[in-house]
């Protein structure tokens, strides 16, 4: 009811409502789309060679530009098309600033990248500078130093600094994506940068590890591990050390683990009662509480950002549909009614959408978004292939998911509005179960 009254309020305020109305009680955040919202036009002048391999500056520029584009905070302006010289800009000049601002560019970025001797191995040094058209001055800069293996990370940090300066948000350029990939017939856990680079293998068990999810502090993953092929556990792995713990080892299925936003609870699915039911484990007291009681299958819990509610899949109405309940298992209500197959819910970090897999009338498995009050629903992917396991970026602007659209199962990123589909994985035979990390 509170959600409904909020909606009425929003309607009363009209379409011009700007900003975010937040209702802590119900997790419904009404975010009006600002019709006047404009991304900040930004231009990258380039990174001069500061003494080192030729590719260095180009790599920094390429990564930075991709990050700025994906931030959805900035619009990249094509400076050469405005007649602005972008190469070998050592110390950017007043004339260039004026030329850019006259053409509507609000922010200019440039720098230098090179090597510096540091004992036996040379360090990469990247300097970045920022000019702000509004104040007509160079508002600041950064100097990053590190090994050649962290050049991409330097560019990611600089991108996040820019997003932070202009929005106060931490940015997503340094976030990670955990996923499952095939290694010698087995399925193992990996973690990569959010843009698909720098994958690291996390497990080497030789059978099936599935459905990784992050701890709120990004130090751990929880996941389903098949012990000796015959039984499932929910395990915890510490990324820094590789150390593992078994959190849950009940009879039957032990799947779809999800830590609450405060880390106090692990919600998961087990079939120890004969059919799949959702439980929660208190990570402090280790007390186990059953949340669903139903002869049908209940699975795939996804926490609301406040931790007060849980979205989940249940086939109590026949086919699988998305339901909501309070975090103690009370107040269960059905959310989806359109279509005969809705599953794998993922509650957005802003609270305003629940992404899920929806089966279309043509029997295609695509991604849909539905608002927690059920009033708004939109399908954001189309075409052939099975889409699965949507997971939100911490800024709530993107989703990562798996799809067989290109034949084999690969990972893709897409904006919440269905635009800018980007494939993240290439080669290999199978990628699935992506989970986007929290922001730093």
């Amino acid at each position, binding site marked *: 009811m509170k959600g409904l009254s909020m909606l009425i309020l929003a309607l009363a305020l009209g379409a011009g409502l700007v900003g975010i109305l937040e209702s802590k009680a119900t997790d419904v955040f009404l975010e009006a789309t600002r019709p006047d919202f404009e991304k900040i036009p930004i231009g990258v002048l380039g990174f001069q060679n500061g003494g080192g391999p030729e590719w260095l500056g180009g790599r920094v520029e390429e990564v930075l530009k991709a990050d700025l584009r994906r931030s959805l905070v900035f619009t990249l302006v094509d400076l050469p098309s405005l007649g602005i010289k972008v190469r070998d800009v050592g110390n950017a000049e007043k004339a260039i600033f004026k030329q850019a601002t006259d053409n509507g560019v609000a922010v200019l970025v440039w720098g230098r990248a090179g090597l510096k001797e540091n004992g036996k191995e040379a360090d990469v040094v990247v300097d970045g*500078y920022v000019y702000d058209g509004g104040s007509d001055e160079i508002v*600041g800069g950064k*100097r*990053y130093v*590190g090994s050649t*293996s*962290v050049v991409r990370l330097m560019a990611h*940090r600089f991108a996040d600094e820019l997003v*932070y*300066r202009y929005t106060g948000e931490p940015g997503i350029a340094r976030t990670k994506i955990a996923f499952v990939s095939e290694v010698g*017939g087995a399925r193992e856990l990996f973690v990569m940068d959010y843009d698909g680079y*720098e*994958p*690291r*293998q*996390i497990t*080497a*068990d030789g*059978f*099936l590890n599935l459905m990784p999810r992050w701890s*709120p502090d990004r*130090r*751990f993953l929880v996941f389903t591990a098949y*012990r*000796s*092929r*015959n*039984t499932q*556990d929910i*395990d*915890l792995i*510490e990324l*820094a*050390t*590789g*150390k*593992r*713990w078994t959190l*849950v*080892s009940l*009879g*039957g*299925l032990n*799947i779809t683990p999800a830590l609450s936003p405060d880390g*106090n609870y692990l919600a998961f*699915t087990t*079939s120890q009662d004969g059919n*799949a039911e959702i439980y929660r484990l208190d990570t*402090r007291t*280790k007390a*186990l509480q059953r949340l669903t009681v139903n002869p049908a*299958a209940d*699975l795939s819990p996804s926490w609301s950002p406040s931790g007060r509610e849980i979205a989940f*899949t249940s086939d109590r109405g026949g086919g*699988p549909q998305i339901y909501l309940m309070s975090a103690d298992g009370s107040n269960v209500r059905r959310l989806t009614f359109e279509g005969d197959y809705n599953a794998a819910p993922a509650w957005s970090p802003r609270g305003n959408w629940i992404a899920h*897999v929806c089966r279309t009338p043509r029997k295609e498995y695509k991604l849909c978004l539905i608002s927690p009050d059920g009033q708004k629903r939109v399908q954001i992917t189309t075409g052939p292939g*099975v889409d699965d396991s949507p997971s939100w970026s911490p800024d709530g602007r993107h989703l990562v998911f798996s799809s*067989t659209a290109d034949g084999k199962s690969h990972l893709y990123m897409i904006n919440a509005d269905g635009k800018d589909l980007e494939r993240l994985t*290439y080669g290999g035979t199978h990628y699935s179960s992506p989970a986007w990390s929290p922001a*730093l």
Partner: protein
Amino acid sequence: MKARSFTACLVVMLGVMMVTGAGCSKKSVQAGSGSKSSEERLAKSRSGSVTPGESLNEGSLGMSGGAGDIGQGAGASSSFPDLTVSGRGTDAASAGSEGGGLRGLEPVGPGKGATEERVGGGTLMAKVQPSDSASRQIEEMRREQAAAAAAGLRDVFFAFDSWTITEEGRMALAHDAEWIKANPGSLIKIEGHCDERGTLAYNLVLGEKRAKAVRNYLVELGVSANRLAVVSYGKERPFCREQTESCYQQNRRGHLVLRTK
């Protein structure tokens, strides 16, 4: 992932542990050193994870890998690290110590550059220890499959989205039940499999429904339930990998294997 970086990553993975200096510190951790004890722990827990009935560490109360999946749930682990946000702390200081905290743009001018910010490897990640687990699992699977084939055990196939045993399935299981009853020492594992359509999670549930339907029918035919274990592999271990109906049909299956010691 991009092919080139994937290859590079493999090389790194096999080689050195990721060097990860804290973002705000000039000190960086040298590869390999200082993390030996944790790697030893890692290797130890991994070898534990491939032995039936052995728990991953002292803290876990795992159930044994014996036949029958429905036994008493052994419950949750009694000890693991604090996962709460308050317990761990996510303030700027702790985020910075992981190399994560942003420090803002610094004023720069003629002759005055920004202070050096040392960039480490981001989130710390240990290298993976290739274990003997993989080859052992493959060997065990081969023996299970060979034993089932030698026994002539037949599989059961299902319709789309269904876990109902068909007439054909009942005939296969009647044959299987006779064999199991005639071989009193045998232990059977029933694997539930699904085609690739639908979600990973819901297919794990569907696979379990299929495996249990097979088990229940065998019990109806007089096979003792404690000789039958069920496990669901969902769509994670397909028999056939093409996106065709004949391939999907192959993957919607209750697969019987003979458990070998």
